[in-house]
């Protein structure tokens, strides 16, 4: 197989780290995302590896699509292979989690409970392995793709079932998990792509229909070729808050403003104004017809009104982050929230709840409060021009999008509002485009 030249963009955000891989033509052929977990070195390695793994997947897909003899099995085979691959990765992580849990359980401070604790942990992890198959089954809807999120939810639930206030307590089990999950997340050796893909291939073929199995030898060849494909990173650019931590020379580091501007422009070439609401900052960016930034504003002294604000509110309400928007959308009577401070907004929330106001109405008010702050930055940066592209994690929240749509209409009139399903990757995409430009200019 010939060499594939790729360009990698990495966006080290405060909450998540993202990577995008482009080919020579500028098509996105791989993406990766992980929790930033205050350890940018690890996050960077993990995300880069994941994006390159996805790139190999794209190669597999392309090879299968390009082979007329495989046309009828393409769809069924690929989706099953992908699920099995994710399951394989998840099981590898679980194996490491078990190791870390047992090491933590072995600590002398657990004294007489050590043996019993070991047994409980093994029992819980066995159940987690059983559940893994369900998470990655064909019709499963996963709330999150992060190992930490899935493992935490499962472990906590099982720990509650398996704990005993007079023996192995829930707190003891939580303590073990807190220590172990960090070790698993900070390990950068997550098994090789080849082993995981080969490991996924056999179960996929075994469970496949006869039609697929008839093509087994050709499919094996294709997968094998993908495993051996030579992928070269011809350029890498890093961006985001942690960019100074990237092990790159300075010229390979760009500010997230330029990357978001260029990324938004690449996703929607008509973009003239971009708004990005990320974990800790909100950026209002004006770009020209080529995607070059002409002006920008960011929140400076305080990060209230950013993604973390929603995270905090979700915690306060004991909800998942992704549940906030849909719940807020059920509101018919929005409550006005005045607080500009995240912590005070939490206090206001509790006050409103105690007054008997409905959760959805309060949440609708909180979403509007966030967007009002963003509107002020947009105004500072030069307003909202057509077309207007909304990016960042918060762009996936339907209630935030609705509030934005309303306020833009009120203040600036009709504007085309673009939101991509992949908007969280905007910064990484911009960075990858910069990497490609630089490499091609030097070539």
């Amino acid at each position, binding site marked *: 197989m010939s060499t594939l030249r790729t360009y990698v963009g990495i966006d080290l955000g405060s909450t998540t780290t993202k990577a995008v891989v482009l080919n020579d033509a500028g098509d996105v052929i791989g993406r990766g995302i992980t929790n930033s977990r205050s350890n940018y070195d690890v996050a960077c390695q993990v995300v880069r590896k994941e994006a390159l793994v996805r790139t190999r997947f794209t190669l597999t897909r392309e090879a299968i699509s390009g082979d007329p003899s495989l046309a009828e099995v393409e769809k069924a085979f690929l989706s099953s292979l992908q699920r099995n691959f994710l399951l394989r990765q998840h099981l590898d992580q679980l194996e490491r989690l078990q190791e870390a849990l047992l090491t933590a359980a072995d600590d002398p401070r657990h004294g007489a409970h050590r043996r019993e604790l070991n047994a409980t942990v093994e029992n819980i992890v066995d159940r987690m392995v059983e559940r893994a198959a369900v998470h990655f089954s064909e019709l499963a809807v996963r709330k999150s793709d992060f190992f930490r999120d899935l493992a935490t939810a499962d472990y906590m639930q099982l720990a509650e079932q398996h704990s005993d206030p007079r023996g192995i307590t829930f707190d003891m089990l939580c303590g073990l998990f807190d220590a172990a999950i960090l070790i698993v997340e900070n390990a950068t050796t997550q098994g090789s792509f080849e082993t995981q893909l080969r490991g996924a291939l056999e179960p996929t073929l075994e469970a496949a229909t006869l039609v697929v199995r008839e093509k087994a030898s050709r499919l094996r060849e294709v997968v094998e070729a993908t495993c051996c494909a030579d992928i070269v990173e011809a350029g890498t650019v890093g961006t985001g808050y942690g960019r100074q931590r990237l092990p790159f020379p300075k010229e390979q580091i760009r500010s997230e403003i330029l990357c978001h501007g260029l990324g938004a422009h690449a996703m929607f070439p008509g973009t003239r104004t971009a708004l990005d609401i990320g974990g800790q900052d909100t950026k209002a960016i004006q770009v020209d017809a080529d995607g070059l930034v002409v002006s920008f504003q960011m929140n400076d*002294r305080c990060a209230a009104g950013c993604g973390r604000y929603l995270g905090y509110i979700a915690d306060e309400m004991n909800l998942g982050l992704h549940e906030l928007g849909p719940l807020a959308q059920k509101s018919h009577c929005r409550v006005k929230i005045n607080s500009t401070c995240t912590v005070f907004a939490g206090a206001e929330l509790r006050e409103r709840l105690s007054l008997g106001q409905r959760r959805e109405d309060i949440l609708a008010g909180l979403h509007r409060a966030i967007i009002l702050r963003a509107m002020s930055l947009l105004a500072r940066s030069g307003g909202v021009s057509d077309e207007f592209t909304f990016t960042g994690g918060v762009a996936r929240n339907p209630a935030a999008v609705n509030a934005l749509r309303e306020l833009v209409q009120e203040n600036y009139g009709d504007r085309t509002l673009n939101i991509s399903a992949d908007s969280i990757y905007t910064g990484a995409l911009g960075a990858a485009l910069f990497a490609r430009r630089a490499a091609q200019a030097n070539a």
Partner: protein
Amino acid sequence: MTAASPSPRVPTEGDKEPSMLLQKQMIAGHYTALSRAPQEGRKVVYTFVPGNLTELLRSFDLLPVLPEINALQSGMRKLSGDYIAEAEKHGHSEDVCTYVKCDIGMLKKGNIGPTGERLPPPDLLLLSYTGCFTFMKWFELLRQEYDCPVAMLHVPYQSEGRILPYHVEYIVQQLRTEVIPKLEQVSGRRYDEDRLRDMLRLSAQAEDDLVWVLESAKHVPSPIDAYFGGVYYIGPMFTAFRGTAEGVSYYRVLREEVEGRLREGLGPLTPEGSQEKERYRLVMEGPPNWTSFREFWKMFYDEGAVIVASSYTKVGGLYDGGFRHDPQRPLETLAEYCLGCYTNLGLPTRLALLERYIREYRADGFMINSIKSCNSFSVGQLLILRQLEQRTGVPGGFIESDLVDPRYFSAANIKNRIESYLQMLDQKRAGVNA
């Protein structure tokens, strides 16, 4: 795209130029004179930088104390955080001007000045009311503390963008009927106009050299940084040394140094040596942050950014607009000086000035440092940003910090903003293929 940063080097006394050592000596001497004033029977007047009447005070042998300078010095010496906390303990709100709180806090903690010597209490508070409306409240607080006389000089705001004859008459009248009589009373000396004229003559000489130094930044590349370096250059002029022989010799030495830098093709002097490559020429609006002054400066010089002109260095007088103290018209010239300070200018005049700087100094961009606790400066800055961009086609950047409250300097965010802005300038230069 980015040049390698100059390698960090620990600055030594050898890096300091004679003008720096001279200024250090002058300021130390002044603080020592202040600390000895009560024993030596010298009288002290507290007054503000914008619209300060240093020559007039000196002509009565009075010593000036500038509370803003004490506050910024405390900021640079990392003392302001404690002083502000002290003032807040005494009931001053978090949102009040941090110069005021730093000053009040310093007072409450024994009024030890920036050099470690005790500052004398004022014999008079001379309130020059030039554009900053907090000044009045500030001295109201000090009067409660010190129970001393106050002389009020009301300087009319330049609402029409120029100085009108009745403005000057109004100030001269206040000087004759309010300020001079009080200075006579406090000092026990008669007003001596000839002495004042002599001092004003010295002021004008020093002002010529200061303007020459500031305008040397029109040269590409610039031999000076007109903001981070500029705040040192204006030191003697804006504080206690206008109208003195020391002031004249300081500005002569400084000018010769800058002439030397020009001849040798050297860039601005930074704490890490001469700045080697000028990659961006910027105009700066707004005061600097003092608590992280070096760190803030480094964010610019590491990237090769040089500030070629700034509005802050005009708060104590707009000399590059052509004004010089005129010994022929002593009181009128003081009036015109007060009226012309940057803080006393309306928005259209500020805009016009910044626009002129961008054009005359061939700036690639301009940046606004918006100060959280300074309403006088901050009002209208976003308007300035938009309008300047429209008028000049040069992009503006916006950062936010504070004067001397260390809590409002978020280094990571500010650095991020500056880098983003400079990369935006790069991109603008290089076009699509950046």
